[in-house]
């Protein structure tokens, strides 16, 4: 590996930051870091939220004759006003277990990287996951006053319910935040840096009772500009910090000051840690999600400097609200997703943490199986999600796919347009991730409030 001038600059910069003798080469420095006291095994969860409602029906398509013919009849030909993808374009995979008697499926043609990761066993699908307070049948759904989550089919509410699992319409904290509250005392006691970092803006997912997330902009070094060590500058910084601390009696001023104060503290910690980040060999695609996952990988590379043993990251990709021109819009988004997830998995291998990092998707909802006008689809419900990582029991589909029939011909449809009533709850999906992350079974209920209503708290896609 050639050492560039930039690498050397980073190396010298970080030696200064860590107070280590300045004659260490870059490799010497990395050895020094590696020899730090061995922490408990590090583990991280990486959430990729697909904003807008990803159409899961075109991510994973049954390719047995009956299943595909049903799919193509209802969805129609994508080249002629419909949404059905040609059989010849789908990327074939075989799942270890059967769904509706079939294990032959095709992935969306723009996801060859994920096809390979599925086949090699690092990627699993979880079928028909969605917001639910308790198991629900079509008959129950159609009866008066069904026990359904509040404001189904509303973007804002379903996004919040995916993140909070509070299905009553009042959203107070996120399940990752509550999970971090729970594992912090056991795993993160040696660090003051927040256990959850968002590289995609604010997300209630990351807010717990005590946990407040850190947010950063991918590819930037966080910090305050315009200050140096001169006396006037020092005095000005001191005044700024005093202004942040004064109680003005106006609640919103206090709230804003608190955000800034915390950011100044945590940005310093992170920027110092990142100064020692090695250059990753893995090439990330130059896309929005690629940049986010590259930033996450860089933080993973300095995990020992941050001192956290359990970390959660929040990333996102938007634009999935394909009410029109779905074929033209969703394809490039799934390509971006597939390429970025693949690069990120490669980076975890490069950093020797592939077994310790699990990446998973969430999305508002799936979309109607029946096409809408304008070559699009409308807001639906249960969808397929992806879980990726060295610890994942991949090449398999967990949960149960819907029957892909409409209206009265279906046991899955909420209505007549193919809005699948979920058969796996997000509580189960999240609790499976949380137990791998270190949450004990006894601690699950406060984090996953609907879990008690479902038969199994562990779906089996992680150990």
């Amino acid at each position: 590996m050639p050492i560039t001038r930039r690498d050397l600059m980073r190396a010298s910069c970080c030696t200064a930051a860590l107070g280590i003798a300045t004659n260490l080469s870059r490799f010497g420095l990395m050895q020094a870091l590696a020899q730090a006291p061995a922490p408990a095994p590090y583990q991280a969860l990486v959430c990729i939220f697909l904003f807008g409602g990803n159409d899961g029906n075109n991510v994973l398509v049954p390719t047995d004759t009956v299943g595909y013919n049903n799919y193509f009849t209802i969805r129609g030909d994508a080249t002629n006003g419909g949404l059905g993808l040609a059989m010849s374009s789908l990327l074939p995979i075989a799942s270890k277990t059967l769904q509706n008697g079939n294990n032959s499926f095709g992935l969306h043609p723009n996801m060859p990287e994920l096809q390979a990761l599925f086949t090699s066993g690092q990627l699993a699908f979880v079928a028909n996951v969605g917001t639910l307070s308790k198991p629900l049948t079509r008959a129950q759904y159609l009866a008066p006053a069904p026990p359904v989550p509040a404001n189904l089919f509303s973007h804002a509410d379903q996004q919040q319910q995916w993140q909070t699992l509070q299905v009553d319409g009042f959203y107070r904290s996120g399940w990752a935040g509550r999970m971090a509250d729970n594992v912090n005392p056991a795993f993160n006691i040696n660090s003051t840096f927040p256990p959850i970092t968002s590289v995609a803006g604010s997300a209630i997912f990351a807010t717990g009772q005590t946990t407040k997330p850190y947010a950063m902009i991918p590819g930037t070094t966080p910090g305050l500009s315009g200050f140096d060590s001169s006396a006037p500058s020092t005095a000005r910084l001191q005044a700024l910090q005093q202004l942040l601390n004064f109680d003005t009696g106006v609640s919103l001023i206090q709230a804003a000051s608190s955000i800034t104060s915390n950011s100044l503290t945590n940005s310093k910690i992170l920027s110092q840690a990142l100064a020692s980040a090695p250059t990753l060999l893995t090439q990330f695609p130059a896309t929005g999600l690629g940049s986010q996952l590259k930033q996450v990988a860089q933080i993973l590379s300095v995990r020992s400097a941050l001192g956290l043993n359990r970390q959660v990251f929040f990333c996102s990709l938007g634009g999935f609200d394909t009410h029109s021109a779905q074929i033209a819009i969703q394809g490039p988004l799934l390509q971006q997703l597939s390429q970025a997830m693949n690069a990120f998995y490669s980076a975890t291998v490069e950093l020797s943490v592939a077994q310790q990092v699990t990446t998973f998707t969430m999305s508002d909802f799936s979309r109607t199986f029946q096409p809408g006008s304008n070559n699009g689809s409308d807001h639906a419900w249960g969808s397929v999600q992806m879980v990726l990582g060295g610890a994942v029991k991949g090449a398999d589909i967990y949960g149960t796919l819907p029957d892909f029939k409409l209206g009265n011909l279906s046991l899955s449809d909420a209505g007549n347009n193919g809005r699948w009533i979920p058969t796996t709850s997000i509580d189960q999906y999240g609790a499976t991730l949380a137990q791998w992350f270190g949450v004990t079974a006894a601690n699950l209920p406060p984090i996953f409030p609907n879990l008690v209503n479902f038969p199994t708290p562990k779906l089996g896609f992680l150990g």
Partner: protein
Amino acid sequence: MGRQMIWPLALALALTGGCAGGSAGSLTNQTQTTTLAASVATPAAAARFMEHSTFGPSSALIAQVQQIGLPAFLASQFSAPSSTYPDPPAGVNSLLSTQQVLFTNALSGQDQLRQRVALALSEIWVTSGFTVPPQGMAPYMRLLLQDAFGNYRTLMYDVTLSPAMGRYLDMVNNDKPSTSPVTHANENYARELLQLFTVGLDQLNEDGTLIVDSGGKPIPTYSQNDVQAFARVFTGWTYPTAPGATLQKHNPPYYLGAMQPFESNHDTGSKTLLPVNGVPTVLPAGQSSATDLNAALDNIFVQPSVAPFVSKQLIQHLVASNPSPAYVRRVATVFDSGIFTGSGATFGSGQRGDLQAVIAAILLDPEARSGDDPASASATDGHLREPILYIAGILRAFGATTDGVGPVNFATSMSEAPLNSPSVFNFFPPDFNIPGTNLLGPEFDIDTAALTLVRANFVNSFVYGSIGAGTKVDFSAYANLAASPDASGQLLDSLNALLLHGSMSSSARSSIVTAVNAVPTGTNQNLQRAQAAIYLILASSQYQVQH
């Protein structure tokens, strides 16, 4: 509440009952009680009113409003001619030139209130350059400017048929259902019209609080079946027919004028819409596109939730994130009556949905004005200045000139790229709860750990460097103030009045003075002394939260 206020004038008038009057003398320590009607305002009241009703006070504007008073300023704004957005030439793909206009209008346009309201409307009735080309965004912004002082029902009609909204939420070319393959009408516009633009998800009391059932649960305003019925109403419309062209089922994209119906593409079946006073509303089969559309908009507009839903959001955009239910109720009542009387003035036509009446009710309400007297300021008052208002307010305060490019770039870096919202849910939602509090703070959704430093670093660039070649500012007047023996006193008095409507606490003032005095006096140092004070105030939460 331990809020210390420094204000050189002894305010003799309690501002009660929506009275906008104030101290008669602005530069003396007079204490006599004035009996003047609502014709003059204190400097603090004038400055703070500008924070609510314009893109930010300047010294000249404060002086003007002091002289004529708040209601007269409102009246003059309601009659001021509108700014405009020029049409980008065909073939221009970049939104930048249209985004620039938002800032150049905000800095120099005389129709400040119209622009503020149009900005608020653009964040409720969201369209975005993400999918709408600049040739669509410019006429859309003109539409909002035009309708900002009109009637809400007119706005509903105009936006529904605007090609920009048609493109953004897929009402344009929304075909009636077909049979091969079987399709359903596009639900996008129908759903968001109800959820975001008019009635909201849950039924509201007149004061904006939720109506709950016997089990304490909110009552949905509409069902999925309602969304599907409205989706069928909104079938059959296509882009305006360009001059010289002939109407087709799917006209090619064209953004000037209103969308047009192509009748044979309209779903003429009957549609069951929202109940009115408990009675189901059925549109009979066989009606035209336009008849169905107007009946559907009427059906929505008469819903009682519209007044509190719209009123609360406009309050949040103009005045405060957490208005009391009583404040919302007063404004919603004016929405319904179409007329506002207060502060010795009357605004509005008496027609339900009159926006001049609603805006006057919002801005002249006693709760909005209570903070004009620092002694009666409320702990839950205010809202975080969103990036557009933050940047524009700073530039206006210091008389900066701009081509708009720098402000657009910095607003974008603060997650508020003008006219380019990431989704129909705006840059931030009205119900964003500030984590760890029980307070709403919509704009806080884009004040993350990362973005709060972007804000401070913008101030650093503006004060100490440059925010771009097209933006110029001159701080020499403040450098001169910093030169006098009582440097920090005069400098801070001036900045306090301009930027904080005189609300700076003595402790904040003391901290800033210390930082100013850390720069030695002298010809070359005076600018730096002024810059230190300006930086600290602009970067402080006291300024960032308009209160």
